[in-house]
């Protein structure tokens, strides 16, 4: 009941609310698949009972793997699971660069632009990818297959320039290699993704 018997709450959105702005991309109602729910239940046990909030990053990764990006519905769902407010979840989502709040392509090409990669031609790699896909960094191609972004040091500067595609690493790329990678991804899909050099070289 509200403080006035004739009136009800919830008709207006006030900026003091610990909820998300209704103008945000809501997306369809969200729920984990049974597998993801089981994964979440396992992960949350790693933290003390009173600290479920610690599982917010893993919980958001599960959302992103399930539906590609993180919608307002998903933030509310995660907030409910963890016993925090949707605004707490939004606070986290908006801070970390690996979470997407808008749809991205099936392959997100992340070119490292920091010093050691730049000294070894990363700018040329970005240019080549940009020309090949007809998009600028930050954009997704019209088919929704590729998103191109520039990222900061990935921690593999000895293998410069490095491009991370989704979670897979491609290293020591020349502009020519980068163009070929795009063709490979078009032709073979996820099978064209490699791992880090240690995995690739089997050593």
């Amino acid at each position, binding site marked *: 009941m509200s403080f006035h018997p004739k009136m009800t709450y919830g008709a207006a959105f006030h900026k003091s609310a610990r909820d998300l702005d209704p103008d945000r991309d809501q997306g369809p109602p969200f729920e984990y698949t049974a597998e993801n729910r089981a994964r979440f239940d396992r992960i949350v046990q790693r933290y003390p009972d009173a600290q479920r909030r610690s599982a917010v990053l893993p919980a958001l990764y599960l959302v992103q793997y399930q539906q590609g990006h993180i919608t307002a519905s998903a933030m509310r769902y995660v907030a409910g699971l963890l016993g925090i407010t949707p605004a707490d979840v939004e606070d986290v989502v908006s*801070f970390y660069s690996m979470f997407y709040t808008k749809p991205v392509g099936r392959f997100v090409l992340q070119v490292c632009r920091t010093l050691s990669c730049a000294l070894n031609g990363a700018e040329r790699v970005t240019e080549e990818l940009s020309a090949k896909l007809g998009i600028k960094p930050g954009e997704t191609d019209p088919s929704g297959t590729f998103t191109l972004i520039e*990222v900061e040091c990935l921690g593999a500067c000895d293998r410069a320039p490095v491009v991370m595609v989704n979670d897979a690493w491609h290293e020591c790329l020349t502009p020519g290699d980068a163009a070929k990678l795009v063709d490979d991804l078009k032709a073979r899909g996820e099978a064209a993704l490699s791992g880090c050099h240690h995995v690739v070289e089997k050593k």
Partner: protein
Amino acid sequence: MSFEPLLTKHVREPNSFTLDFYLQHEGYDGLRKALAMKPEEVIDLVKASGLRGRGGAGFPTGMKWQFVDKKSPNPKYIACNADESEPGTFKDHLLMERNPHLLIEGCAIGCYAIGAKIAYIYIRGEFFHVQQVLERAIDEAYARGFLGKNVLGSGFDCDVYVHRGAGAYEAGEETALLESLEGKRAQPRNKPPFPAVVGLYGCPTAVNNVETLANVPIILMKGAEWYSKLGPEKNGGPKLFCISGHVKRPGVYEAPMTVTLGELINERAGGVRDGRTLKAVIPGGSSVPILLPTQLDTQASFDGVQKAGSLLGSAGIIVLDDTTCMVWLAENLLHFYRHESCGKCTPCREGTDWLYKILRKIERGAGQMSDLDLLTSVANNIAGKTLCAFGDAAVTPVLTTLKHFRHEYEAHIKEGHCTLPADWRARQGVATHP
């Protein structure tokens, strides 16, 4: 050199990451030794070894463990810093992927020493392939009784969990790491209190770098005296050096800290590429001052590099040849710091953006001479005025390039463009790998 690597000896062998391989090479013997000692004896041993933190600050690890408030009624924690985001640094990457059990063993010994039952390994989100290797290794360790309840029948319980970050350099700062682990933005806390007293969930916590913890089993196996004698006084033990930039053989190289920067760059990494000369070296990740070719005989130790006017930091050695434009370099790094500033402190949040924009203007040839003083004064109003060391780190590329290469800034302004050969950024990497 007669030195035999201790951390990376086997990393090129096919199964180096498996438990069976590790056990064939004295794996978990350090943990066995530790469990036969009292926890305080383990701390005393690590203190006596002189081990200094490998994450950047070089603080003595034994002392950090001693500061952990053992009398607190709350649980204690180890938070292993595997965020490895300092530009030019990629050693923890190699260790975790190729020698994960060494880190797991270090975590278990650390927990035992400080009275913790849980170690969280906070790994940067981009290291997903590394995380998978690490998690498989942890599962193996549980299955064989090196982790879990009653480790090796000693009555000591120990859990190790991997916690994945999601893209934030600042999450590597120790208190920001704890915030992130608690499910919040990676923003630093005011210190004191230090994590050893009020850390994760308000409980006593030791935050240790991956390479630091990986040294602990070695100390147990080899003894404190042997360990401290490997290397110069107060700079003992093996050290991993990450060499990248304009060298022939970039990579991770292990050596005692008696080695010089020149030996690492010219002998181990093959020197700068053919036809080029060395212009400058950033010896400890992007946050430290530049050293010049005349300083190559500097000992690559915490104290040696500091004496030369810089810092060993994370031992990320970035080598720059004569084609490198120093204004462009500062702009490139300030792009990084502007992007990574967590936004909590105003001088850093606003100031890194100002610095980046001024540098960009100068680099594009639209700068004025007065911009150089402006850069210096903005930088000096950020340094020392922020909660964590990020502010100092962010202004260093600006101040150090202005100090040593002011003429390049002036040339950009006078000529209205970069005066280095036009192809300097078009060259491709021509590196070979060890």
